[in-house]
């Protein structure tokens, strides 16, 4: 059957031809693994591999020499941090382990390559990420020779391959003894790249394990999600010595840049971890909370866990009187998967609650109110809305607010501009936004919490919800004070009965319009739902949004016309 090249072809050759025809594309092995040449090559190759591994091992050992010091402080070594942030057993494509070889010390027996950075592409909670860690075991994490080049290359790779960027930061910054002005100028690219990553829709997740000071503070500051470690994080522009020299002020490192200060006062940190292990867990939780790879609309439904608590409890959580406080996290626990809610910035602006959760597998960012919106809360919510837009995570607004905070201190703190910023973020958000009126939705709180006027994709009410510019009593009291003041100015006091009558009228006008039987009648929502159905309704709504966004209908220049 096979083609015959020669009429007198011996049988063996034609057989070989046929075999080749069957295995057209398979390369036939022609090497002899027993040959002397092969063996010599192999020995040479193994020796080179051994040299490379020896150099890698030397850097590891140099870094690990700090093990006792780190462990005594309940800190992990940088490579332990990398191992713990990565999915065990998953591929990790480590990069440029030989960076800076012979440039740190020109001695092949002493040079410890790596540039002071451990970096590679690996998996964090199932998401392929660029992971970069300061090798804090060596020289307090200062960048070493070619460390800048390595870092910039690693950032370029993340940008080109659209990888989220996970940084495990602990660095004393540049080594001042080796200062070179071109490194300082070129170093700006590190910060530029962080801003580019964020704008490119690639989340930058940072754990600030230790020092992140002066210029290095921006390595933390330019991140989208920041985890700080209690007692270890140091993020400030000037430490105590420089501060004292510059202004004479005396402050401790903890006061200037500790994790507790940053997560509760400055808002630089979003999550407070108890130690390195806890911090890496949080970093993994943040990644797990992103719906990063979204293959099909319903991909997670099958293994979604139900809430741990009974939805029936939702009946007893919301007070009938909206003035009574309620912890909305207790409500959230009764309709999100596994009652799992990774709270974002819980200690900064704590009356405003933000966090990641899933509903029937759909990732969702939740914003709700445990009290009035204040400047910190509005700032946090703005940040959170933008972070959700970055990761394409739909937003859920659970309205339970009597509005933005009032008072001298709050006006001075810029309540209006921070509130405005939040309203801008809500307006410009590019992800599906869903609103549920769970309790009060008063005043500008209604706007900031994506009320009907802000065109949420869906807007539902719980039966107890109240919507108004303010409460009826407040409105009546306000009018009474204004009227009495005006009358006093004129010197003609208004009779008490008249004031009371006016107050009663205002109260009845306001209160008569605020409940769901008034607002839903005016189609100011998409309907009233039984709180026990919240999970099911949200699951449907999320699926509708996701399917709708993924659908590509054939748009036409005309409507289908009847004959």
């Amino acid at each position, binding site marked *: 059957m096979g083609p015959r090249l020669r009429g007198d072809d011996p049988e063996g050759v034609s057989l070989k031809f046929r075999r080749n025809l069957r295995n057209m594309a398979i390369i036939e092995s022609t090497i002899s693994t027993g040959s002397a040449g092969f063996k010599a090559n192999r020995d040479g190759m193994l020796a080179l591999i051994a040299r490379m591994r020896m150099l890698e091992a030397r850097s590891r050992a140099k870094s690990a020499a700090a093990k006792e010091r780190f462990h005594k402080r*309940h800190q992990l070594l940088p490579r*332990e941090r990398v191992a713990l942030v990565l*999915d*065990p*057993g*998953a591929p990790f494509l480590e990069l440029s382990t030989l960076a800076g070889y012979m440039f740190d010390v020109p001695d092949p027996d002493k040079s410890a390559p790596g540039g002071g950075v451990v970096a590679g592409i690996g*998996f964090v909670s199932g998401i392929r990420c660029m992971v970069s860690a300061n090798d804090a075991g060596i020289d307090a994490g200062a960048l070493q020779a070619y460390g800048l080049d390595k870092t910039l290359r690693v950032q370029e790779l993340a940008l080109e391959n659209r990888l989220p960027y996970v940084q495990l930061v602990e660095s004393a910054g540049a080594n001042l003894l080796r200062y070179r002005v071109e490194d300082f100028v070129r170093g700006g690219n590190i910060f530029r790249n962080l801003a580019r990553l964020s704008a490119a829709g690639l989340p930058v997740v940072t754990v600030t394990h230790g020092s992140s000071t002066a210029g290095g503070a921006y390595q933390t500051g330019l991140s989208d999600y920041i985890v700080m470690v209690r007692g270890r994080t140091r993020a400030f522009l000037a430490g105590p010595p420089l501060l004292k020299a510059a202004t004479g002020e005396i402050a401790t490192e903890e006061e200037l840049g500790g994790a507790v200060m940053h997560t509760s006062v400055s808002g630089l940190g979003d999550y407070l971890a108890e130690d390195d292990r*806890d911090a890496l*867990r949080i970093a993994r939780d943040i990644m797990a909370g992103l719906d990063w790879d979204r293959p099909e609309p319903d991909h997670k439904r099958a293994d979604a866990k139900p809430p741990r608590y009974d939805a029936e409890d939702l009946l007893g959580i919301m007070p009938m009187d909206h003035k009574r406080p309620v912890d909305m996290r207790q409500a959230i626990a009764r309709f999100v998967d596994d009652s799992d809610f990774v709270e974002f910035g819980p200690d900064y602006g704590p009356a405003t609650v933000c966090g990641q959760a899933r509903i029937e597998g759909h990732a969702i960012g939740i914003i709700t109110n445990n009290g009035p919106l204040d400047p910190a809360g509005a700032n946090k919510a703005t940040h959170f809305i933008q972070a959700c837009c970055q990761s394409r995570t739909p937003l859920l607004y659970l309205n339970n607010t009597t509005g933005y905070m009032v008072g001298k201190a709050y006006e001075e703190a810029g309540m209006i501009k921070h509130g405005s910023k939040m309203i801008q973020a809500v307006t410009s958000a590019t992800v599906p936004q869903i609103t549920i009126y769970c309790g009060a939705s008063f005043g500008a709180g209604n706007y900031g919490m994506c009320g009907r006027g802000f065109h949420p994709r869906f807007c539902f009410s719980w039966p107890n919800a109240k919507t108004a510019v303010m409460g009826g009593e407040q409105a009546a009291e306000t009018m009474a004070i204004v009227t009495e003041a005006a009358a006093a100015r004129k010197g003609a006091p208004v009779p008490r009965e008249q004031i009371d009558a006016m107050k009663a009228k205002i109260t009845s006008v306001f209160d008569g319009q605020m409940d769901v039987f008034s607002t839903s009648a005016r189609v100011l929502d998409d309907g009233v739902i039984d709180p026990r159905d919240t999970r099911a309704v949200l699951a449907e709504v999320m699926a509708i949004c996701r399917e709708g966004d993924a659908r590509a209908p054939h748009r036409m220049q005309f409507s289908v016309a009847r004959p």
Partner: protein
Amino acid sequence: MSGDRIVKLTPFRKILIANRGEIALRVMRTARRLGFATVAVYSDADLDAPHVRAADQAVRIGEPLPAQSYLRIDAIVAAAKATGADAVHPGYGFLAENEDFAAACRDAGLVFIGPSPQAIESMGNKAGAKAIMQQAGVPCVPGYQGEDQSDATMAAEAARIGFPVMIKAVAGGGGRGMRLVESAAAFPDHLRSARSEAQGAFGDPTVILERAIVEPRHIEIQVFGDRYGNAVHLGERDCSVQRRHQKLIEEAPSPAVTPQLRARMGEIAVKAVKAIGYEGAGTLEFLLDGAGNFYFMEMNTRLQVEHPVTEAITGLDLVELQLRIASGEPLALRQEDVRFSGHAIEVRLCSEDARHGFMPQSGKMLEWQPADHLRVEHALYSGIDIPPFYDSMIAKVIAHGATRDEARRRLIHGLEQTVAFGVTTNQAFLTACLRHDVFAQGGATTAFIGQHADELLARPLVAGIDNAALAALLLYVTDPHAPPWRPGRSLATTFPMPMRFAIDGEVSETEIARNREGDYAVGTNGEGRAIAVAALDGGVIRVKADGLTESVRYRRAGGRLYILRDGVVLSVHDLTRAAPERAAAGGGDGKLRAALNGRVVAVLVQPGDAVTAGQPVATLEAMKMEHVHVAPVSGIITELGVTEGEQVTTGHIVAVIDAATDATA
């Protein structure tokens, strides 16, 4: 004899089983084989239980607590009426020895598969039963069963009987209201506590006194009687291995009973059955002392939990005998027809933590796979929720062999193969009992567990890879985010991962890394041992280290890992990325958390109360056991997280104590 009498048939066709769990399934199996239709009843906690699935019809009878469901006579009789059932099998426990229930069935025209209400009543009262038995010539332990319950009389009677003395609740059972008193001095205290427990448990503080037989064996004789005056015995069972006065291991025959003794005990039992005109299955329980003297304790007027060992050595189906007798058939079995073959041992697999005072456990049984080749009576499936409301016995494993050693060997092997992941069971404890020299030699008395507790609770040494290394390896390869395991070269990071985990509550740390060749190094400070994984599939890992290959069953569920090794389930909790335990460990945060899933039966403090460490704060009840929760620290109760009657889950905050305002300071 039967030939002389008129046959009084009470035929039926559809049986309602007034029980749950394995016994309901056991009764249904025979009923179905004999052509009877079956009806299950269930509480809200058993909505989807196996006995509900198995029955032809099922009727809801109430809420989870037994008093609101399985003990509701009206609801069960109504269920029978609604489904057209014409007979009721009570199983064991619940209403099995309740004469009112038997009477209610009879009054409703239902055949009660068991003895008459009168027989149940007379045997249910321990004092009365003894008197009856004594009259029938059955030897009894010296004791006092008088109506005069005054402290003085009780003390005088105790002295007359002679110490040690046992105090027992008249209405008792399951070890409640029972106290062993060693001396006259300790008697008043024990009397008081036995009475109060009896009052709490049975609503009747009346107690009886008995001479305590030291280190006796628990020997019981299985009997059957019919309504025509026929009776046989099916030999004895030895149920000496007990904890908390509850049986754990039962066997037939008893290694301590000679053929002569068997014949004598059997004869006395049959005589007694005939004397009281007993119908159906019954068991006479005796204490056997070291000298071969036996004393009647009580008669159980129902099928026993441990009936399968008798079935194994006699080849009879005891449920079938029950059904035939209840339908009015004369006992077809004569004493000389009863033949014993080989030896059978049963163990009761209980959801309880032997290492923590046998505390009952409830929760989700993630994986359940009973042993092959053995009879296993259970009502479990992988993923079932074991509710906290009922008995902790979840399965019985029965082995039969030509000899006692063969039965024991088969049972040990079967237990080792049993997969029960998710809820702590006494699997390892049972294996240890079966392996123990004293039991192996047939020398176990009722004192066995108490005397050898330390040895029985010790973790057996394992050959090959140590448990911590195996746990680290399994945590690593089965991490929820780990990619599917593959053999061969690996690109995983070779940086050792510092693992931290608790095995049965004990924290370990070790490092693990996978090298480029695909093998694992487990250990600390570079002293890693090389472990190769040969296969990882379907819940089994095959590991190779130091030339030894081993296959191990495991189950990963989130941060939890269960490993079955040599019949011991290791429960591993991954703490690798957990925050450090703060001062909170041991209640230092002032929060008292529920130690188990249970119902709050008593709240003993009010907000604002000052408490001292160790003071009872609340009592939870689970699986018929009360668990007092005490204050972890001294201070002021600032918050109460429970109300009486509430059902709480493990970890629920019972109370918050502000230790800063220490009341004792």
